[in-house]
């Protein structure tokens, strides 16, 4: 989780990812941020987040994204 927060904060240092829970709903992250986060996550966690996973519920918080990563790792 800490590694994920570090990745997200590296892309958007102005957001506190430890507390934010409506990153998409509140328009805090835009599509450019999302693809950058996905790129980093795929690389660092060795998973493959695809277009179908780009749902608000998967990106609204660091916790939700972490759950998605765990799910993808288990599927592999």
């Amino acid at each position, binding site marked *: 989780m800490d590694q994920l927060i570090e990745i997200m904060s590296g892309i958007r240092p102005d957001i506190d990812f430890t507390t934010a829970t409506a990153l998409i709903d509140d328009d805090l992250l835009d599509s450019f941020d999302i*693809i950058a986060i996905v790129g980093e996550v795929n*690389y660092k966690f060795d998973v493959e*987040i695809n*277009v179908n996973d780009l749902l608000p519920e998967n990106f609204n918080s660091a916790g939700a994204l972490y759950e998605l990563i765990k799910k993808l790792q288990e599927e592999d």
Partner: protein
Amino acid sequence: MPVASFLFLLFVSSVIFVYFVVPVKYRWLVILAANIFFYCSYGVKYLVYLIISSLITFLAALFLRKASEEYTNDVATADKGQKKQLKEKLKKKKKRICLAALAIVLGIWIVLKYTNFFLANINAFLSEPLPLVEWVMPLGISFYTLVLAGYLIDVYRDKYEAETNYLRFFCFVSYFPHIIQGPFSRYDDLGKQLKQEHPFSYDRMEKGARRILWGFFKKLVVADKLAIVIHAIRASYSDHPASYLFFVILMYSFQIYADFSGYMDIMGGISQILGITLAENFRQPYLAKTVDEFWRRWHITLGEWFRDYVFYPLSMSPLAYKIASFARKRWGIKTAKLLQSYLALFFVWTATGLWHEANWKHVLWGYLNMFVIACAMQFADFNQKLKQRLHINEEAVYWKVFCVARTFLLVSILRVISTSDSIATAFSYFGHLLKGGLFVPVDFSLLFGEIAVSEMIAVIVGIAAIIAVDILNETGRWQSFKENCPMVIRCSILTILILSIILFGGGENDLLGGFMYARF
């Protein structure tokens, strides 16, 4: 059948009447019949293209469904190693089906829309030019092709299951409120709603009718009157001082907004009466603070289509990752993010420009929009530091007004390129703007010389009303304004709208269906 006509009103009234008279479970068939009648009213030959494209998409989606079902059956009895093999096999099979169908459906559209563009470009290098083709251009092909492609890609991605009834599917694709100018509906939204039963609702009828009225007001009283004024000035732009040309640039933004959003209100209102909610295409676009934000508020469903089916797949493609990975190692995470975004933006804006019209001026217009967005991204840190140094409070009203005005100005100026006869004419227009005379007082009686004074007042009041509604919507006060508005004022507003349409309605209405976006 022009939408801004009595014939269309008669058609819609008949559809609504029959729709609510027949038993609930057959109502979708009324919509299907209405779709076919409406579409054929523009030419029966167009229907052939619509049927071919929709049938290919429908069958391809069924093949995708069948492939997935076969995989589910096979995988139930397979071991771990076989499962992986079967999954790979399914992936390849689905990809082949999807790409083949997309090639045909998009191919039909590309050939019909872009052949002359290719020929004209080839002719520029030939001493004996090739003759241009005069092929039919099916109504709404740029809209329904993308809707079909979106459906197929969604089924390919297992977002939802393929429809098994072709008539149901055709009813979705040809839905008359969206077939000519959008919005780009998704099957899991509109298709689902078309399957649901919608009993009559007086509340929906009233709200829908009000929205239709507002749409006709925007179109007939504001957009069509502005069209006359703008056309007259732009046709002789070299004879006018810069202040007039500048004013026309700003007015065009209101013309296109009133025209396009007016159409969406008319169709959204009709759909609302039928119990079906169409996706919204506008969210107070002229209150956007950046160009990037503007494009998330203007023609929303087109932007979302390009985001989901072009931007994301390209940004997440192996090539984009390779570039990002290379950039990350060399220049860090921020540059990697920018490079990845620029690459996708380039393709999205090339496609957006060409989607509008097959010519270079639209491509240039697209690239300039991209350039502005890319500059904002590139200099985001610098801008932030500058604002801090200048002690600018981003929440202050003056700053918000400045950002909104700046964005409106940028978007309006860029439109000169896409709306001029050619790129050369656009730059000539800019040349006259810079020649001087920007501070010459505008004589409104001369500027609006092509229309009556009463019509000019109606246009100005109409623009003010559009801005007021947008501001109320933006600040979240529109709903409470509507609910708390006394009946007398509400009735007066509706009477004024109806009278304005009767007295001032009509104008430049020579485009297909009478609406600007119908030509795309």
